Structure formats: C-alpha cells, structure tokens
C-alpha cells in the first residue's frame, strides 16, 4: 500500500504527559475502508492515541498523518474536515434544541450549504435509526442514546476517518448492531474506522483488524479474527476471547469464524444442514 494512500498513518509516534510516557514508537497505517479495533487495558494509551488522531495532542516524536495532512500543521477544527470523532464523554457535548439540530452542528461549522447539511443529517440519523428522536431534546435521551446522537454528528461530517472511543458503552444488543451496521456502511463508502472498545464482541462484529496497545506500545497489529481466538496471547494483554470466538475455537469450526452470522452458518453446515 503506497504511503500516501493511507487514510490514517502513525509513524514512530511517541507521546508523554509531562514526564509520564503514554505512547512509545507506535506505527501503523489504515487504508480507506479499513475497520480496526483499538484494544488494550485501561491506561494503555488508547485515549491518548485518539487525541493524537484529532490533533488535540501533537506527537513528541514521529508524526501522525491524516491522508496527506500532517496533524502538526493543522488545528483540530481543520482536521474535522477529515476526521469525525466521538469521545468518551460525548453525551456531554450536546447542546442544541433538538437532536437533528445538534447533528447539523458539525456540517454547518464546516460551511456546508443548507441543502447539503439537511441531506447529511438525514443520512446520519437514518444510518443509526435515530429518526424517531430527531425532534427530541438531547437531554430527554438516556446518556447512551446521547452518545449515539454524538456518533450521528460525527457521521454527518462525512469524514475520511472515523475515530470512536467506546461507542457502545451502555448499549443493548440491538443498538450495538445498529452501530455496527452504520460503520460497515461508511467503511464500504471508503471511510477508515478506528474504534476503541472494551467490547470484544462488538469489535468482532464490526472490525477486521486488531490493534492492541500494551503500556504505550503496539503489541499486536493483525487480523482480528485470528487474534480473538488466541486466548494465550490475549491474556497477558488483559483481554479474554469473546464467547463466540471461544466457541469457534472450542468446537474447532472450520475457518474459526468470530461473527455471529458466520458462526451460525458454520454450526448449521457442520451439523449437515444445507448451507444458506
């Protein structure tokens, strides 16, 4: 993959908060359309990495590239043209009278034409099935749903890179599935997705690639499916295989699928049922 074609690239990035090191020598690249899960213990450096992508922090060493933009040369509000982000406390950032208006905030701030703003908002709300809440006041929603509204706001920016910090915290299965679908749609259109998450089941359903941070270093960078089934490798990193990956390994299903649909298919097939 040519260097300039990467949607997001970290080249030897190190960062420290004062004297406390947070990231050391992190290098990886995401191509457009790739979906990667950023995993690791609390304190491993995940949130720091997210802030480096958005330009809120600048690397001490190395460089962060969003497309052909070096984040050291751009302010966060400029990078917002290419990076859509949702932080951990996103439920606190909403302020407009209605959810729809709040989702429109980003595109308007970027100077999109009113008709374009409307289109983007409608698409984003639709992707997350938030249409029913479009006219509600954000604080009439639960914190988890407010976070989904913040995600809609990031989608409405139609960015090249989506970086999300714990997008499914507090969500039940059906909402998690909606988020997975929305991210898959955007990735299919060429957006690169980086999702920080503790929810390995969600990671398995949504992402193809796994990046694991351990004490500030990138311990793993590989296809997620193989990684999730490998309990001995996950344990020292503070992770445990999610149930379906564990099931897949325990029953020795061919191909070791980790996604619900693929596991169901493999089970059905292994039992002699007609493949769907």
């Amino acid at each position, binding site marked *: 993959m040519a260097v300039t074609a990467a949607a997001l690239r970290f080249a030897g990035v190190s960062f420290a908060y004062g004297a406390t090191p947070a990231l050391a020598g992190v290098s990886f690249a995401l191509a457009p359309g790739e979906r990667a899960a950023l995993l690791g213990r609390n304190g491993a450096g995940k949130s720091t990495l997210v802030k480096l992508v958005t330009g809120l922090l600048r690397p001490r060493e190395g460089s962060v590239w969003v497309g052909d933009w070096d984040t050291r040369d751009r*302010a966060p*509000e400029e990078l917002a043209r290419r990076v859509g982000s949702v932080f951990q*406390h996103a439920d606190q*950032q909403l*302020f407009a009278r209605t959810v729809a208006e709040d989702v429109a905030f980003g595109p308007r*701030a*970027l100077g999109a034409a009113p008709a374009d703003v409307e289109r983007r908002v409608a698409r984003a709300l639709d992707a997350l099935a938030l249409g029913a809440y479009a006219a509600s006041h954000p604080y009439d929603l639960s914190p988890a749903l407010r976070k989904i509204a913040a995600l809609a*706001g990031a989608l409405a920016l139609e960015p090249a890179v989506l970086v999300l910090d714990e997008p499914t915290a507090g969500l039940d299965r059906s909402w998690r599935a909606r988020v997975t679908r929305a991210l898959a749609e955007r990735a299919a259109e060429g957006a690169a997705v980086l999702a920080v998450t503790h929810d390995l089941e969600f990671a398995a359903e949504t992402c193809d690639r796994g990046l694991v941070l351990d004490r500030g270093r990138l311990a793993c960078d590989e296809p997620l499916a193989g990684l999730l089934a490998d309990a001995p490798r996950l344990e020292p990193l503070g992770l445990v295989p999610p149930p379906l990956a564990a099931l897949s390994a325990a029953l020795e299903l061919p191909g070791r699928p980790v996604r619900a649909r693929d596991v169901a298919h493999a089970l059905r097939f292994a039992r002699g049922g007609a493949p769907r």
Partner: protein
Amino acid sequence: MRRRHPFTLLALAGALPALAWILPAPAGGMATAAAALGLALLPAAGGGATVARAAVLTAAPFWAFLLLLHDAATALAIGLRLTTMVASVVWVVAALPPARLVEALVARGWSARAAYVFAATLAAVPVLRARARRIVEAQRCRGLSPRGGLVRRLRALRALALPLVLSALHEVDERALALETRGLASGARRTALAPPADPPAERALRWGLAALCAAALVWRLA
C-alpha cells in the same frame, strides 16, 4: 499557606475586602488590593500565575463599567475595593481545598450535609473547568473555530456554554442521589478523618483580624 487552618484562610479572604471598604480611599483600597493580588500571585500563599490572571481578568470588566459611569476618583476608589474582593475570592478558591474545609467544619460540629453544601461551591470550580475543557475539545473536533468575528465567537460561546450548563444541571440530580447513598443524610455526626490543625497562633491571628476590622470601623466612624 495551604497548611494553614481553613478558617484562617477564610478570615483573611473576608478581612481584606472588609478593610478595603472601611479604610479611606484610595490609600486603603490600594493597600488591600495590593495585599489580595499579592496572595493571588505568590505560590507560597497558594496562588500563582494562573490564579493572578484569573483575578485580573475577572476584575477587568468592572473597571470598564466604572470608568464609563463615574469620574476618575470615584472609579478608582470603588474599583480598588472591588478588585480586593474579587482577588480575595479567587485566591481563597484556589488556595483552599474543599476537603479541608469540610473537615474543619465537621470538626466544629457542623452537619456533614451543611458542610458539604458550603464546600461544594468551591469544589465545583475545578470540575467545571475540566468539563469545559473537554467540551471545547469536542466542539473543536466538530469544526468549531475559536477564532473569527464577533458573531462567530458568540455562536461558538453558545456551543460551549450550553453543554456545560446543561450537563452540569443534569448531573446535579445524579450527584444528589449518589451522595444520599453515601450516608450524607444519615443524621449521624460525621467522623472527622483528618481535622486540620488549629494552632493557637492562628486562632489569635483570626481574632486579631476581626479586632483590626472592628477598630478600623470605629476609627472611621469616630
């Protein structure tokens, strides 16, 4: 200064503005304003560059209005008194950890709830400041530019102030619940975990400050 008893810090923060208003302007005001700003500036007193800057920035708008409304002499007199008040408050908020204030109040027999309410106003500042910073970051990542013309800035202010207020208000309910569940309403007398030391010298200092204010008042009225 942080190790001094909380009541001493409060006494100082109260005495300086009192003296500023009692003593004749502009000399009295100048002396007390200088003392208050000095406290705000000196790290040894619990202050520092940020504290002093906050004090100056908070007092500045008052000066602007005063100069518009009054002649120079009146503006100076009132302005110095207001500056003393503002600087004293900003200083005490920075120098007095709420936890110590609660401990001191509880050691004196206040109920935990009353002590908490008193201290919570001080504690709210750093929490809100941290949250405000997070909100600014989030809105910047949505394309909000802190630069631009007046209209732009006003619009930006709305995107920053509203979420802060809304989320803080919203949180008050949840905080109240959480505190209830931590026994704040138990009615029992709270055990002081680490009551601040109150050496006789400091007590004497506090009485001394009160006496000084009383004497100044008497002298002024006589």
